[in-house]
């Protein structure tokens, strides 16, 4: 029997960590992820876990400590947000290229500047090419479920890559909502013990971690790393199947909502997907065939499967909660366009930048996107493909 609870997104992650009881957690506080190490350190102090908790002096040190302990053979995790993740940037690549399956709870928050503590995806999108698996979560339930599943994906022998499990800062990290928790024993059995093939503290098999790599081998090592990332897609689905057995909850590479017969659809990430589902239902009641695709895995990007799910749609909006300053849209827009490029009848695609720095997104905002899509459908004219949602201009203050 699952446990009916109410927890914030941060509480849910801290609780998952408690159930997993990792060997090491090294962390430095930053809003809005601070509560995770805060709650977890309470579990440590109360003896509810036997984790070595390493309070460090910066995020660069936090992830460096994680690299050291994971390389030593210890199951290791941390949490961060925004500038904290940015400060980890250098070491993210070290962790991934050394094939160290560390898990980060990433609580999405805008990067400075201007300084802002609220949600957008500029932090984790800034790390999207670092070699980390990225899993995104709509609400506290998904954050909890994804965090537990992530551990089994990253430690799989065919993957051995780190992962960040993302959710929107404040919007879900600080919102108390209903959640179904899994019993301790089931979680522990699901994640099992961490038994790495190779690790630094194995005296019978001496090894070095992170030495200089010459041009003769670097390219091959990167190719192997990319192979691990490709495998993560298959492993994620296997893990999801196993997870369904203990939770009753189904996960895929993404979620398709009322997409099968949709003529107009949006592709969206994290908490706004929930708001958008309400917009879809409202428009469906008005007889409009709309749907949505919610990203779960962004790295690896399941391009073929997404293309298959979207190719029948006539007009599509990719929703980016970050700017990439490419002058043609955001990272999700770029991936979606690339994924559909090889389809004979690709949908018309527009890309919206929305919700930056915690700008609230209402059901009506998403409805207005669908209305824009129907306008394209009616006129056949796509118009500007790089758009801003609900942004004030100079006239309309």
């Amino acid at each position, binding site marked *: 029997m699952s446990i009916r609870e109410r927890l914030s997104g941060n509480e849910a992650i801290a609780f998952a960590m408690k159930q997993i009881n990792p060997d090491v957690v090294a962390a430095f506080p930053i809003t*809005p992820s601070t509560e995770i190490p805060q709650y977890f350190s309470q579990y440590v102090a109360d003896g509810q876990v036997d984790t070595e908790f390493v309070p460090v002096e910066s995020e660069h040190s936090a992830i460096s400590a994680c690299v050291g302990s994971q390389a030593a053979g210890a199951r290791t995790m941390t949490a961060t947000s925004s500038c904290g993740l940015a400060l980890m940037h250098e070491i993210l690549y070290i962790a991934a290229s050394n094939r160290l399956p560390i898990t980060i709870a990433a609580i999405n928050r805008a990067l400075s500047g201007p300084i802002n503590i609220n949600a957008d995806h500029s932090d984790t999108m800034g790390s999207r090419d670092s070699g980390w698996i990225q899993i995104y979560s709509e609400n506290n339930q998904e954050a909890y479920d994804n965090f537990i599943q992530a551990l089994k994906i990253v430690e799989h022998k065919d993957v051995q890559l780190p992962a960040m499990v993302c959710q929107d800062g404040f919007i879900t990290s600080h919102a108390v*909502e209903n959640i179904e928790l899994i019993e301790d024993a089931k979680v522990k059995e699901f994640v099992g013990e961490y038994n790495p093939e190779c690790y630094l503290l194995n005296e019978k098999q001496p090894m070095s971690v992170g030495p200089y790599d010459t041009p003769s081998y670097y390219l091959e090592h990167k190719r192997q790393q990319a192979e691990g990332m490709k495998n993560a897609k298959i492993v994620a689905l296997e893990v999801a199947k196993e997870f369904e057995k203990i939770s009753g909850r189904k996960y895929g590479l993404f979620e398709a909502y009322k997409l099968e017969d949709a003529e107009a659809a949006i592709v969206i990430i994290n908490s706004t997907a*929930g708001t958008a589902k309400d917009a879809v239902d409202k428009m469906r009641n008005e007889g409009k065939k709309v749907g949505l695709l919610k990203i779960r895995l962004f790295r690896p990007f399941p391009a073929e499967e997404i293309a298959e799910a979207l190719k029948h749609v006539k007009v599509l909006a990719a929703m980016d909660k970050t700017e990439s300053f490419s002058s043609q849209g955001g990272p999700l827009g770029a991936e979606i366009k690339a994924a559909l490029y090889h389809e004979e009848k690709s949908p018309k695609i527009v890309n919206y930048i929305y919700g930056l720095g915690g700008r609230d*997104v209402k059901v009506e905002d998403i409805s207005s996107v669908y209305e824009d899509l129907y306008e394209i459908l009616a006129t056949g004219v796509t118009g500007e493909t790089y758009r801003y949602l609900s942004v004030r201009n100079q006239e309309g203050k």
Partner: protein
Amino acid sequence: MSKLTEIRWHGRGGQGAKTAALLLADVAFSTGMYVQGFPEYGPERMGAPITAYNRISEDKIRVHSNIYEPNYVVVVDESLLESVPVAKGLKKDGAIIINTAKTPEEIKSNYPNYDCRIYTIDAKEISESTLGKYFPNTPMLAAVVKVSKLMDENRFLEEMKHSFEHKFAAKPNVIEGNMNALIMTLRRLDDDK
């Protein structure tokens, strides 16, 4: 039948409006509902106007936006009436609940634009007489439960007792004071009818 109740709390940083919203989410959860309780974060400083929200429903809640057309508005600090458009978007069949020593009629004459039912509760007086200190959120929590009829009053008191017993295990006298604050608020609003 699906029923969604949306509540917006207005307070000042440090007064416990966020805590009250989370307490309401807790107690509604205990009675079997789906809940959301969340604050709107701005610059964090004591005394700054803050907003917190509740959604309470019989069905799963998916929306993750702030609340613009609430069924109920709770004003924890009377001085906000002057500076914040607290009644903005409030549904006409909804209600505003204000922490003040004034009567609803006095509020109505000062703010004729409040186009809804108005309830007032002197949370300061109730809190000081039951707890010996000014913690407005306990009376305001009882007031919103009373006005919204979100749950049975006895069930509410029962659940709150559990919650206080858990929270103040080391300070039993605080439990009684808080319970008295809730009961006194419920009775005062009875008398208003």
